[in-house]
């Protein structure tokens, strides 16, 4: 059992507080992704879990063991670095064997473990090469190989794909997901790329300004973002936020959007009053072309074949992006009408918190 529990982790660098009271309970064999913009503290949090950085306060448990003060090697973790951190003077074999050499493992067992890792990662042919002779993807695999051989309880990945080109990143995403199934281990993965988070994670931790914005499954975050930040971060293209004034709060929430369009939205209205300003979140993929609805001026039109993405404005210049069918009859510079189902809308208060949606799609696992 390798659960990972973080209890009230705080971290300050001098007077700058970078992590605020972070508590997370990560299940055994779970693939958890920390995602957030640059400087949100995700890498620092990972380094604290690894033991490379000390937390200012709080405790870390791996399994039943309190490892808060343990050296990295005694925590039962292994880490894959963004730069891969391969030893350029050692062969692939020796790179993978490095942790075992440190442990002074007997030759036979070492050989067997390195060969097994190389087999899993398709590196058997490359064992005699130096890292400099490998492609980016292969180096990445060597770095993973080095983390596998130790049979750690928890794997830590620090933005491992960010140095790869887009195509390779897609392939490696799939490989990592397969590896997770194959190894059946707990994995914590840091990235700033929400696509990686959505595609690979069992659960996602969205971090912002050193705080956990939300911890949930990808589809939970997509359908039930707890804050405006999460809503804006998860989903591609990003969610639109349209300023609106509250007209009515009994039953549904009736609002008038920037541009004059009125809608009645099925959300929990407690805490909002008539006349309040809120923001209505509408995902680009949830709108359809119609005869009435939001009046959008199309400034830029991107035809991608299967879909068309438009960037435009509504009302007083609020930016609005829409994802429509590939051959939607729209033109750059012209206006279009978009309809959106009220139950697909999200409503955020001025403090960024969401008003709970009463009807939302059932969550898929």
């Amino acid at each position, binding site marked *: 059992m390798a659960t990972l529990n973080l209890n009230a982790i705080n971290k300050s660098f001098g007077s700058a507080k970078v992590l605020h009271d972070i508590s997370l309970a990560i299940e055994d064999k779970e693939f958890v992704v920390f995602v957030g913009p640059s400087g949100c503290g995700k890498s620092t949090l990972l380094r604290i879990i*690894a*033991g*490379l950085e000390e937390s200012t306060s709080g405790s870390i448990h791996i399994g039943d063991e309190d490892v808060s003060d343990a*050296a*990295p*090697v005694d925590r039962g*973790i*292994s*880490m894959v*670095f*963004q*730069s*891969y*951190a391969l*030893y*350029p*003077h*050692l062969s692939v074999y020796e790179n993978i064997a*490095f*942790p075992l050499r*440190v*442990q002074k493992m007997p030759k036979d067992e070492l050989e067997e473990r390195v060969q097994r890792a190389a087999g899993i990662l398709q590196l058997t042919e490359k064992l005699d090469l*130096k890292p*400099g*002779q490998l492609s980016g993807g292969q180096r990445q695999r060597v770095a993973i190989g*080095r983390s596998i051989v*130790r049979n750690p309880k928890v794997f830590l990945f620090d933005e491992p794909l960010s140095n790869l080109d887009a195509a390779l990143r897609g392939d490696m995403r799939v490989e990592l997901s397969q590896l997770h199934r194959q190894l059946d281990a707990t994995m914590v993965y840091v990235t700033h790329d929400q696509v990686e988070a959505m595609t690979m994670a069992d659960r996602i931790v969205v971090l912002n300004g050193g705080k956990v914005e939300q911890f949930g499954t990808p589809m939970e975050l997509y359908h039930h973002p707890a804050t405006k930040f999460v809503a804006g971060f998860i989903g591609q293209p990003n969610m639109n936020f349209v300023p609106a004034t509250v007209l009515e709060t009994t039953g549904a929430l009736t609002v008038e959007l920037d541009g004059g369009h009125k809608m009645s939205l099925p959300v929990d209205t407690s805490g909002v009053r008539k006349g309040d300003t809120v923001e209505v979140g509408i995902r680009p993929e949830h709108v359809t072309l119609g005869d009435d609805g939001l009046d959008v001026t199309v400034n830029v039109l991107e035809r991608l074949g299967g879909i068309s993405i438009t960037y435009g404005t509504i009302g007083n210049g609020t930016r609005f992006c829409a994802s429509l069918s590939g051959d939607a009859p729209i033109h750059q510079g012209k206006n279009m009408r978009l309809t959106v189902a009220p139950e697909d809308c999200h409503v955020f208060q001025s403090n960024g918190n969401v008003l709970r949606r009463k009807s939302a799609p059932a969550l898929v696992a």
Partner: protein
Amino acid sequence: MAELSAQASQPAANTRKRAMSENLFGWLLVAPAMFFIAVIVAWPLAETIRLSFMDAGLGGEEFIGLENYQDLADSRKFHQTVIRTFYWMFLSVGIKLIMGLIGATLLNAAIPGRALFRVLVMPPWVIPVAIGCIGWLWLYNGYFGVLSGVMMKLGITDGPFEFLAYKSSAFYSAVVTDVWVGTPMVTLFFLAAMQGVSRDLYEAAWVDGAGRWYRFRRITIPQIMPVIVSMALLSAIFTFNSFEIIWILTEGGPRSATTTLIIDTYKVAIGNYKFGEGAARAVVIVVLLAVFSLIYLFFLNKINKRYGAK
């Protein structure tokens, strides 16, 4: 048909012309450097080689063939000087490299006041060697020197101890001073190389359980190996040819205890006006250093292949 081929050859001729002028331009660019090398290196070297076949002194020159070399080959004293020079070089360079490694490691560690220490390392290198050596002369002095004083206070010696008056203490004192002068440069080069080693490598090793010594041995040393090897060669040549330190401290004495090849050459050629014999010694130095450098470059190449493959 003829017209066509004439047309075709026109651009070819142009290209040739341009290549010619580019060639000429290249030679013009290197000409000043070539001129200075010729005047400062090539001509003196040729002149030295010529002189080495002469019985040359203040009175004139006479061709004597290989006699000067024959004399060197037969001279036990000269053999001892060669051995002493290599001993001097290996000992001094060895200590400089080890001290440089230790110093650079300490300066690279996250200790408070690191910047200050980095500055404090510099003086031996920055102070003119002659001035530094005069300081050492005082340190080694038996009556006024602090070293002798401390030794007397501690009861190690009964009376004043003149470091530069005895054969072996003079030799090792000269080594100490040479190390003092030469270590800062080695240290700073090693420090620069260490700072170029990615932090991730150390952290990865740390996560894998490698201790300080293991990380130093398996990461730092291999990573800076090309610099270590280059510095060893540079330092070896400097030390082999080190003149002013020995000359100021002992002038090669007592009883030739600190006479290295370069001191010997100077004494013979300039001190005794035996230009021919001195030239033969100088040629031997050039050959020894050339052979040494070749062996070295061979190893450097191997090491770079082993450690430097990107």
